[in-house]
Structure formats: C-alpha cells, structure tokens
C-alpha cells in the first residue's frame, strides 16, 4: 500500500520511475531480461527478439501517431528503408553493424521527413493516404532496383562483433534487446522535454500551438523524422534478425499491424506501445497453440488458423476501439490502482 509521496527535489518529481515500487519493478524486469536468454528455448528467444523489434517500431509510430496525432500507414515502409540499407551496407561494404544500423535509421528518417512534408497542408486521412503512396513507391523502388536485388531481395551475412557472428537467437537477443530498451528510454526521455510537449500540443490543438510559439511544420517533421528513425532502426534489427530482405518482407499489412498495436496497447503512452506490440506479436502464437491443441479433436483446426487469425486481428482493433479506447494500458492502470490501495477497497 502506498499512502502518499514526498519528494524533496524537482528532479525526483520528474523521474521516469518515481516510486520505490516502480523502481523495484523495473529492476526485477531488467534482471528477468538478463536471465531470460539463459533459461528460455531458442523458440522463445526468437519470439522475444521479434517482440522487441516490434516494440521498437511501434514506439516510433506511437511518437508520431499517438503523441503528435499524425496517422501513418507507412511504418513498415520506413522499416524496409532501414532493412535494405543495412543489407546493402553489410553485403557491399561489410561495415560494422552499429554504423549500418545508424545509417539505415538516418536514411529512413530523411525519407520520413520527405513524406512528412505534405503534413503541413493535409492531415488525417489525406496524410495517411500520402504515407500509403510513399509505401507503394518505396516498394516499387526496392523491387525493381538492382542494388536492392529486385524482386529477389537480398540475403546478407550476420552482424559480427569481434569476429563472432551474431546469428543465433541467443546472441541476437543481446543485440536487439538492449537497442530496443535504449530506444524506449529515448522516447520516454524525449517526452519529458520541450519536444515531447510540442508533439502533444500539435496533436491536441495545432493552431493554438503555433500561436504559443511552436512551429507546426518543424514539429511535425521532427516527429516524422524520429518516428521513421525508429522504424529504420527496427528495420535494421529485423534485417540482422532474418538476414533476408525482400520486397514482400514489409507489406502494407505490417503498417496496419503497428497501428493496431498502439491502438490495442494504448495510444499516446509509452507503456501502451510496448504492451500493444508484445500482445499483438504473441496473439498469433497463442492461436497457433490453440490450433495445435485442437487438432486431435478437430483435424482442420490448423487450416482454419489463418482466417481465424485475420478475424481476431480485426476484432481486436474494433473491440478495443469500441470498448477500451485507451487500450491495454488502461487495464494496467486499473490493476495498479487496485493494488495501490490494497488491501483496502475503494
């Protein structure tokens, strides 16, 4: 039970994790993250890496859509920019992976800014369609350019650190998880500065924000840049993870997936992006378990899996928007509130 908080400095009041309980939880989580690869099977490590990549990308989209209020259906396309850049650099130049990741993310950010330019004049659906247009154009470019392997795509060597190949779920985990954590931390940091406040201001009332000294275009472009930077970085990690990048690797459906993830998780909260991405990554796996259990009773269970998965995906989006528009995060808040006052009830 927590009665009240006494803070002795503004810095303490502004810390990301401001209570002992939260800090304890954080330490526990970190320890769990460190221990996990030693106890989990490769399959669970694989899923953990996939979740982490999706969290990284969803967090980026959350900055753009959840915090700045600009809907993008191009997150997967920005990821493909990062992934292709990493693949090309790795194959052609063999530069260190950290550099490749940064260049990929930087390029994605540059393209993000370009795509964001119409956001000065159009918003809402018009902007979303502009991002679809950008996705289509990028897809066309990648599938017809010899540098990116045309329709065939690129297969690339693994990342290397001190001559050791990072090609196993175990080693990849140590590449992907820390990068994702830093990205999430960066996003949380960003949101407690002037830039984060400007994002929210643009989302809530863009016109008034301008009169209050917030340049609209620059703020929107910053948001596009950082969000596509995140996408590019996530895409780069994806490339190192799968080591093959094809034009089909990042379809429009994936962009919808990330949008769905932040809706289900809770738009405009960092925790929401994390919860949503993890949840949406695990749901298909869960359904797969279900189908496997059902197979002995109902032999067609496995073939019904894909349609059911598609239906569940749609139903989650619709269900959350209608019944729980603030997403999983709201459920989490309720749980926390419950324990907050525990054992007393309100």
């Amino acid at each position, binding site marked *: 039970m927590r009665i009240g908080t006494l803070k002795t400095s503004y810095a303490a009041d502004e810390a990301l994790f401001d209570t002992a309980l939260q800090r304890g939880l954080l330490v526990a989580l970190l320890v769990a993250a460190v221990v996990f690869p030693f106890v989990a099977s490769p399959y669970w490590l694989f899923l953990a890496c996939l979740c982490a990549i999706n969290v990284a990308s969803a967090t980026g989209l959350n900055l753009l859509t959840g915090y700045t209020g600009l809907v993008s259906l191009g997150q997967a396309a920005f990821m493909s920019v990062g992934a292709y850049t990493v693949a090309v650099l790795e194959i052609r130049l063999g530069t260190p992976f950290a550099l490749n990741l940064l260049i990929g993310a930087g390029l994605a950010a540059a393209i993000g800014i370009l795509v964001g330019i119409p956001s000065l004049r*159009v918003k809402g*659906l*018009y902007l979303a*369609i502009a991002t679809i247009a950008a996705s289509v*154009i990028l897809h066309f470019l990648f599938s017809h350019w010899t540098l990116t392997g045309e329709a065939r795509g690129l297969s690339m060597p693994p990342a290397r650190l001190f001559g050791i190949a990072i090609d196993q779920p175990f080693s990849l985990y140590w590449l992907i998880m820390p990068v994702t954590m830093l990205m999430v931390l960066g996003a949380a940091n960003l949101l407690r500065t002037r830039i984060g406040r400007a994002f929210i201001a643009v989302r809530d009332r863009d016109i008034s924000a301008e*009169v209050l000294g917030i340049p609209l275009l620059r703020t929107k472009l910053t948001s596009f840049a950082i969000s596509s930077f995140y996408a590019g970085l996530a895409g780069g990690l994806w490339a190192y993870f799968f080591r093959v990048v094809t034009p089909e690797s990042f379809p429009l459906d994936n962009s919808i997936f990330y949008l769905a993830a932040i809706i289900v998780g809770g738009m405009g909260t960092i925790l929401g992006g994390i919860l949503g991405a993890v949840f949406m990554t695990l749901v298909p796996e869960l359904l797969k378990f279900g189908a496997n259990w059902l197979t002995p009773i109902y032999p067609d269970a496995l073939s019904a899996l*894909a349609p059911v998965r598609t*239906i569940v995906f*749609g139903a989650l989006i619709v269900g959350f*928007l209608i019944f729980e528009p603030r997403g999983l995060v709201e459920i989490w808040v309720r749980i926390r509130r419950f324990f907050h006052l525990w054992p007393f009830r309100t």
Partner: protein
Amino acid sequence: MDALFLAEVMLAGIGSGALYALTGVAFVLIYKATRVVNLAIGEILMLGGYAFLGFAAGLGLPAIAALVLAVVTGGLLGWLVERSLIRPMLGESPISVFMVTIGLGSILVGLVQLGWGADPLRLPEFMPATPVFIGDAYLAPKVAVGFVAAAVVIAAFLALFRFSRSGVALKATAGDQGAAYSVGIDVPRVFSAAWILACATAAGAGVLVGAIGGISPTMGVFGLSVLVVVIIGGLDSIAGALVGGLLIGLVEALAGAFLGGEYKLVVTFTLLLLLLMVRPYGLFGTHEIERL
C-alpha cells in the same frame, strides 16, 4: 504505337475506370452522410462477389437473382455495420472510426476465407461473350457491360440526389448534422440509409469486378485504387469520384500498356502524391476552414 491500339487501351481504361467510379461513389456517399472514411469498402466489394458466387453457384439461382441477392446482402451488411460498429463510435475521432473500418475489413477477409478458402475463384459466366467493337477498336464484352452498369447506377444516384427528398436530406446532413437534425431530418436514418445504399452499391460493383477478374479474399486491394480515386476527386464530391474514377482507370491502363503492368499502382500513387502537394483536398473536395 498505332492509334487503334491507343484507342483500345483507352477504352479498356475507361471501362475499368467506371467500376472505380461506381465504388468511389459508394465511398463518397458514406463519407458525405457520416463523415466516416470507410477503408473496408474494398472488402465489402469482395463480399459482394462471394455472395454472388454463393447464390449463383452454391444455390444454383439464375444470375440475375443472384446479383439482386448479392446487392441485398451488401445492403444488409451496411445496415449491420452502421448499427453495430459505426454508431457506437459517434463523436470519436475520425482516425478511430477509420481504424474501426480497417478492423472490419480484416474480419470480413477472415470470414470469407473461413467460408470459401483462400484460393482465387471464378464466378459463373453470365455476361455476353460477343466481342464489342467500337469502330475498329476492340472492347472486352465484360468491360463494356461493367461500364454500362456502372453508368446506369451512377446516373440513377445523381437523379436520386437531385430530385428526391432523400437526396435533400442527405445534402442537409452532409452540410451540418446538427442543423439537419433541428429541421426535422431523421439524421440516424440518413446514416443508416447511406451505409445501406453504399454497401449495396459496393457489393454490386464486386459482382462486376469479380466477373471480369475472378474473386479472391485479397481482391479488397481494389479498394486501394478506389481510395486514390476519391482522394483525387475529393472525399465529399460525387462528381469528383466520377472524374477521379475515369482518370485513374485511364492512367492505369496507359501505364500498364506503355510502361508495363507493374507500373500501374506506382504511377497512380505518384500522381496522387503530386496532387496532394498542389491541391491538398482533391480536385473537387471542400477545404474545411480551420478556426482557433
């Protein structure tokens, strides 16, 4: 390239453009009445195709009966969707509502796959097979039929809006929902009617599109081109959907003929992007004035 070939290509483009326009009109109808951007329009169109298949091949009904029933199914779906998904979202941000329609699209794809499988299927032949020649230029008979059907339906719509009371109600609702309500227009009924009409139209278009190219759960991507059409025409303009539809049909046909089929989508979307820079609210769309 000779002139005859060019003429044939353009005819084919206008033919498929008519179907874009028809679906675009359905889209605009919903937008005008309810301010909802319905991204599931392509999936509703797909469902129309499957419904036709179900009635015609499954139940063995004659084509015309199956067509009517497919359209009715579309209308029922529209009613159901408006009542159960759209109305609860009234007053929510447009982005939320538009995500609801994305979710709906996903559900429809899943349901169709559950029922009919993921394979592409063909509709039973019900259109004339005699080639149509306009001058010396060849036009695929199905495309010609599709064009005529689309033209008739769109003309009927235009007449309906211009000359009937429901048209007036729709216009009033589109202009200002509150004001429409206060002058005694049953706004919820206009909402329902718009969804029913639009989804029925989309389902009908689905039968035509399916007859030309076959049906599959992924045929909802047709909706992507329709989206381009209405963005170019302006979300709230029926005339815009018409012009946009024919324009995109033509552009796609010309790009397909002279650059190659793989260029179709990229050319239309590039065009779209350029247009958004110059005319952000489409050729005929209304620009909403921002207020502090």
